């Protein structure tokens, strides 16, 4: 029987009060954003943000809790932007959204920073001490190596495959320092928006496999912004070392995604992007449950080990009230299915 697990990985929107506090503490220009060596006032503000995120998830009743990535000013490029081997370039567009991040220009050998591990450790402590945590467990989030390489500028390695491999080794090194976590979500939106050229699929899946091998946790390779190309999908299922592929059922044509699973099989578990992370319309739990059942009826698999119920993108696109409503909708949908 398939286990249903509700989780909302990725960046959350900052609570409104924290937005104002951080505006005062940090300023608004690109030189004022996170560099990994922030002072005590900023650190304590983010500690408060993290605690708020844990509270929000517990109140919603999610099964897997995440850190919320409040400090990630640069969206999923964050792990590079705090690296000593990276210089800050211009402001560039984050996919086809009205969002921007600082271009991370890799200028030296990438080395360990421990930045994400420290955040996750504090989230783990919060979860351990929280009332009502029950069976909730911790999930970690990292950018996948393909997308992180796509989002960055290589001014050091000089070869695309070598760069992807170096990013993968860097992420694996960061992951090695993580505290115990049940699940790792690797975000790979570029696999949809700018997939590897024909013949280069294995370079991407090798890089993902390098990261996946660095943790004992279940690894979910989460894609978003639409359906995967079918050949790339097949490579991912067979070669990425993922326990689950995360598939976007909101953006693009979901029939393409169904076709991929019908034709090329799937990982033992699946993550379904069910809630629209880029729209304020809050879905009914029953509607989300119907989407899960509809999808599972289309594919030739009796049972998945797990079905993760997730948003189709990160939730930072939303205002705070709607993001919280979407957390609850997902948790309630898992209840409906049980």
């Amino acid at each position, binding site marked *: 029987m398939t286990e249903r697990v509700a989780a909302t990985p990725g960046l959350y*929107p*900052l609570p*409104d009060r924290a*937005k104002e506090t*951080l*505006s005062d503490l*940090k300023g*608004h220009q*690109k030189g*004022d*954003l996170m560099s990994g060596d922030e002072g005590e006032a900023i650190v304590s503000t983010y500690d408060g943000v993290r605690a708020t995120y844990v509270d929000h998830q517990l109140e919603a009743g999610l099964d897997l809790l995440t850190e919320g990535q409040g400090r990630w*000013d*640069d969206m999923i490029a964050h792990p590079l932007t705090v690296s000593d081997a990276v210089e800050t370039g211009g*402001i560039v*567009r*984050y996919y*086809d*959204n*009205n*969002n*921007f*991040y*600082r271009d991370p220009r890799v200028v030296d050998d990438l080395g360990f920073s421990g930045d994400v591990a420290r955040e996750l450790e504090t989230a783990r402590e919060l979860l351990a001490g929280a009332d009502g945590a029950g069976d909730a467990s911790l999930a970690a989030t990292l950018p996948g190596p393909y997308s992180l390489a796509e989002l960055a500028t290589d001014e050091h390695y000089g070869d695309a495959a070598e760069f992807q491999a170096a990013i993968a080794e860097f992420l694996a090194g960061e992951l090695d320092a993580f505290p115990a976590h049940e699940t790792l979500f690797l975000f790979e939106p570029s696999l949809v928006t700018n997939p590897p050229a024909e013949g280069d699929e294995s370079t991407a899946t090798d890089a993902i496999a390098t990261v996946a091998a660095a943790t004992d946790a279940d690894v979910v390779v989460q894609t978003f912004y639409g359906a995967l190309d079918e050949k790339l999908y097949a490579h991912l299922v067979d070669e990425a070392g993922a326990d689950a592929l995360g598939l976007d059922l909101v953006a693009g044509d979901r029939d393409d995604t169904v076709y991929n699973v019908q034709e090329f099989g799937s990982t033992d578990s699946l993550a379904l992007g069910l809630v629209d992370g*880029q*729209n*304020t*319309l809050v879905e009914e739990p029953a509607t989300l449950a119907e989407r899960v059942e509809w999808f599972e009826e289309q594919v030739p698999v009796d049972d998945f080990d797990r079905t993760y119920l997730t948003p189709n993108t990160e939730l*930072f*696109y*939303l*205002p*705070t*009230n*709607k993001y919280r409503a979407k957390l609850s909708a997902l948790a309630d949908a898992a209840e409906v299915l049980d």
Partner: protein
Amino acid sequence: MVRNPDANRDQFRPDDHPNDAFLLTTVVGSYPKPKWLNRADELVDDPDSKFDADDLEAAHDDAARLITHEHERAGVDTVVDGEMRRNEMVEFFADRIDGYEFNGPVKVWGHNYFDKPSVVESVEYDEPWLVDEFEFTSSVAERPVKVPITGPYTLGFWAFNEAYPSTEELVYDLADLVNEEVEKLVEAGARYIQIDEPALATTPEDHAIVGEALERIAAGIPEEVRIGLHVCYGDYSRVYPEVNDYPIDEFDIELSNGDYEQIPVLEEPELEPDLALGVVDAHTAEVESVEEIKQNICQGLRVVPPEKLTISPDCGLKLLPRDVAYGKTENMVTAVREVEAEIDAGEIDLDNPLADD
């Protein structure tokens, strides 16, 4: 198809213009607010303050007058009030259109946010959006006033759509509202309207939707009214030459930011509307020299003749320190007037304007 820029350009040429050549100068719209105006915006929300809505209106009038005159002092041919009454380009309009609601700010970059609204029911025209602003600015300006207005594509795509089957349908409804507003502005005397569509740069494959929206906006607007389209920070090759089919008089773009790498995009086929070219960077805090700006102007002369060239900053200048914004604007006008004089004197080869490079 393109409107008739020849029919409306000369009305903006000052009577005392010093040169035979005339490159129309303008600004994109926004300008840094005086610090005291930001304080006034906060004070009116403070229940312990005696500063009330009437005081705030007076403050907005004062700031609008100040910045309009600042543009005139810099020598710009067509001026705006620096959008002193506007907070943000979507929020300002959504606040005035029935059908939108606000749920709180959302991330743009870093921890910079904007109050992205949601469309929760059919959008309807309620009260005029910009007529009061235009009438006030015109009453204090000695030069023609341009009216920047956020376009329907940006008003639709930079909002959450909860009500329409597709955002495209929302855009067309919004275009009808923008048309209604433009008609009111024209009735009030406006002769230069700029439609701001930065969202097109994020999804250029939607150029046909923008074209249809512009058709609705321009419907019934007389040709003596100049209609410009401003698009910024994108890959213009993805909307060109389709722009030649838009019902506009002027296409306003930022290219200084990218060091004019994209200027060849406009060389073939010939650009049909006038070109409004950004010649100072809105996101660098250094004031470009007159000489540097003159070279940037000559980039525009590579693709259009002087009588089809308008000169502006790359984008709104509101994020810059005010002295820097003024310095850029003043140097821009100085550079334009020097280029005009050099054209008159035959010192610039219009077939090869960068010949001295």
